[in-house]
């Protein structure tokens, strides 16, 4: 489903974010990306939804080879991939409902579809009661849940979650993780970059640890501290 072929990424400012990453995520897999801050977790995710382009190597997503993907196709790649951004990236001029609906509307969904699926997504993450609020009227956790709702509203093939529980209390975090597991069990490939040790240890899924932009450890049914002393 997602294949990294010897991917390196150097940002324009000269920072080597990723070095020779090779990784294969099967369809329907659930993967945790861990690593202390600044080791390249977000960069890996950016290469999948093509916010960043590898400086060398290539990424293949659902048989699309990204290095040769024409620019016009990028929006369609991004519709296959639901992303929870680390900084949420909500549209500040739109309400919670509209933010979630937007991701659906751009795919050409009918208004019936929108009216049916948006409330369901909002319910799932427990933010339906705030649907008419604007992002700046929400608490941090509420914004995060809106971002999660948006990422899953159009049933993406792949979900990429960048620190999806950083602003959530342990109970809500567990619920969100359980939700991701449920989505995963229906066939969606899920990649979660996280520092949430409790969740990783509880769920025992595949864990990939990044250190200085390299894969330091890759273990099925791993724990958060895999590969550390």
């Amino acid at each position, binding site marked *: 489903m997602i294949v990294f072929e010897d991917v390196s990424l150097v940002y324009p400012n000269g920072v080597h974010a990723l070095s020779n990453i090779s990784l294969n995520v099967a369809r329907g897999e659930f993967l945790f990306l861990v690593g202390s801050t600044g080791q390249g977790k977000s960069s890996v995710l950016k290469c999948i*939804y093509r*916010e960043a382009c590898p400086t060398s190597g290539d990424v293949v997503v659902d048989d699309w080879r990204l290095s040769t993907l024409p*620019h*016009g196709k*990028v*929006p*369609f790649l*991004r*519709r296959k991939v639901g*992303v929870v*951004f680390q900084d949420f*990236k*909500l*549209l*500040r*001029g*739109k309400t919670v409902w*509209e933010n979630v609906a*937007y*991701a659906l*509307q*751009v*795919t*050409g*969904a*009918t*208004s*019936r*579809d*929108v009216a049916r699926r948006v409330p369901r997504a909002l319910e799932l993450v427990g933010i339906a009661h705030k649907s008419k609020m604007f992002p700046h009227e929400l608490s941090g956790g509420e914004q995060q849940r809106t971002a999660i709702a*948006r990422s899953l509203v159009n049933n993406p093939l792949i979900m990429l979650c960048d620190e999806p529980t950083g602003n959530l209390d342990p109970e809500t975090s567990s619920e969100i993780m359980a939700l991701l597991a449920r989505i995963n069990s229906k066939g969606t490939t899920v990649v979660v970059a996280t520092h949430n040790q409790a969740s990783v240890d509880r769920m025992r899924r595949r864990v990939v640890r990044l250190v200085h932009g390299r894969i330091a450890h890759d273990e099925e049914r791993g724990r958060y501290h895999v590969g550390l002393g």
Partner: protein
Amino acid sequence: MDWGRTQFFWAEVAQNFTRNAAMALTAIGTVAISIVVLGVFLFARSSFNLLLNNVVNKVDIAVYLKDEATPADIDTMMRQLRADPRVDNVRFVSKQEALETLRKRLAGQVNLGLINVNPLPNSFVVHTIDPGDVPPLAGELQAKPQVAFVNYGSKVTEKLLVIRRVLGTIGLGVIVLLLVATALIIYNTIRLTVFARQREITIMQLVGATNWTIRWPFVFEGLLTGLAGGLIGLLVLWPAYQTLAPKLTLNLPFLPLNLADVSVGHIALELVLVGAVVGMLASWLSVSRYLRPA
């Protein structure tokens, strides 16, 4: 476009306006101001052209005939001139008529008793349709055997024609300058409003919107901004025109300036069109800048 997408499109346009109201109003204000300035000058130019044409139109050719010319000669010539497509009308002024006119003109200045022979010749006064035809026609007439002398105030006429040409060019240059300036100002303004939403555009791209999905509402918003600015501009210009134009005519009754002849409706249409088209193009270009692949 199905109903759901149309609804989505209009909701996007409406949101851009209402949720960035301060910004939208600032942009509309700038467009309106530019349109007012442009409108004042389009009007001024039309009025001025009209005035100049009317002045130049007053130029006549005076054709003084030799005393030898018989009434038959005069008649033939009169008919020839009337048949000339360049000629608007011809009037015959007899020696006697000319002397009467001179007497009246000199009354009080000159001892009229001293003028007891008529030194003045018969003449035609010829008015052409296009003042530009005056010099060549005068040349042709001068060549005729019956003609003693042709006078069309050649210096004044040529000056007037040059002035008309030069001022016409300057007027055109100024209007072009103003059009370009207005377009650039509207473009820059809309660019700044798009600039402020750069982050939003990036997010839209990241959640899978195609460039066209992002662009259309912006383009339409630009169109509406331009249109609204243009209409507000007209709302300012119209009462100003209504109150000032009569005052102008009143203060300059002796000028051949009929403001009713200025095609105000035409100018108004041009102004609104300029606003709308430039607004639309400006949005298009501004958004496209942020839609280019990184």
